[in-house]
């Protein structure tokens, strides 16, 4: 079967790709370090970061990003290594596929996905780490820890979106949607 010949990646695009992933790495590292700083309640920044990177990435890249962010989240939250890794990995693959086939990059869709992701992670965490052990007043953990944490995560996702969206806007090759755009881009190069 004949395959469609793709355009060669220029050195500039290669450099931009490297810078983009270095910045992603830096953001992930920063989120990991700040997560253990201070005893106050804080958003789980690694969730919106993983979701946002996955929305711009292919499935296998999304898989690795979700896995990395999830494992880091396990370390900061003191959970069984792999618990959040599994959740975020599956979440990121799903998000990557959703963006590939159905969604476009809009703030609202990102917020909805982050809210869903934070809520799923929070609920699973609450169920497996608190609810099933049958301690008294366990619902208090959900109302006073899980829900506020989800809200903080959703609120923080505005900043995460702004940062990662701008990184992509500056460093990612522009998506060509029409033949006219493709011709114009080719001419300009």
């Amino acid at each position, binding site marked *: 079967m004949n395959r469609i010949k793709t355009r060669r990646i220029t050195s500039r695009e290669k450099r931009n790709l490297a810078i983009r992933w270095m910045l992603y790495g830096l953001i992930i590292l920063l989120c990991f*370090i*700040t997560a253990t*700083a201070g005893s106050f309640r804080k958003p789980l920044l690694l969730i919106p970061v993983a979701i946002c990177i996955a929305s711009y990435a292919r499935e296998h890249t999304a898989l690795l990003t979700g896995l990395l962010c999830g*494992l880091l989240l396990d370390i900061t939250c003191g959970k069984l290594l792999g618990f959040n890794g599994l959740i975020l990995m599956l979440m990121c693959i799903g998000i990557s596929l959703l963006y590939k*086939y159905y969604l476009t990059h809009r703030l609202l869709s990102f917020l909805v996905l982050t809210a869903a992701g934070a809520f799923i992670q929070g609920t699973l965490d609450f169920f497996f780490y608190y609810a099933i*052990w049958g301690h008294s007043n*366990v619902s208090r953990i959900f109302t*006073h820890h899980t829900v506020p944490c989800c809200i903080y995560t959703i609120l923080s996702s505005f900043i995460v979106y702004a940062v990662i969206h701008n990184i992509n806007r500056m460093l990612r090759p522009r998506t060509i949607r029409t033949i006219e755009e493709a011709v114009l881009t080719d001419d300009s190069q």
Partner: protein
Amino acid sequence: MGDFFRQHRFRILICILALLVGMMLYTVTQGGYAAPGSGLLHTILSPFQGAANHISEKSESLLSSFTQGSRYQTEIEELKAENAELKNELKDFEETKQQLQELQQFMGIKEEHETHTFSAPCTIIGYVTNDPYHSFIINRGSEDGLSLHDPVVTGEGIVGIISTLSSNSATVQTIFSPDLSIGAISADNKYTGIVEGEILLAESYQCRMIYLDRDTTLTEGSLITTSSASGLFPKGYLIGTVESIEPMESGLSKYAVITPAVNFEAMTSVVVITDYPGKGEAHESN
């Protein structure tokens, strides 16, 4: 989207999933010992974590001084530059004094409990994210002689136990956790019970002593210390003071609300009791 499930990548995904589940099972079988990868990561990142935590603490104290109103503001205006300088010097002095006091307290517990072996002072490098029981991470691990379930104390009293251990760091589970039960006795040796955490009390940095008789005469202000009943803690370490006596949910016994002797919000370093007479007896008997 259906294409994805027929692709080679989907098989890779299944393999990674299986690997991840395997890793989780491996971690479970380690019974608290951190997986090799996470230990290495902690070792690499602990200086960054420590720095971030230090910045966070400084910002918190700065923020609280702003939020505490105009009184401080007018005072600062009156004192001007010279006083600000003196204040900075005083702050440094206070910090050094606090460190000295902590070290003196550590020396005190060493003198008090000669048969016990203590680790070097451990600095708190971070907190477990959003943990309702205030668990935290210290900068020493198995390479410093620490082992799993070792008691953690300060000069003021008990703090908790080591719940997760890696080579250069450890996570401390505090006395606010309902998963930790400590044998306790009142200072007058009249009443015994079990000190454990409770979700509502953990919010206000308190815990409770359960299994008290309904006709207990334990009063507010009584001191509670560890007994060696649970085997987790050596005898004679201060837990806290009784705040109030309440009936248990079942109505069959009472519990005492305890305010810990240790100020968890201001705590910056701890020591670990690495060895003591009777250590591990409870584990062995189980």
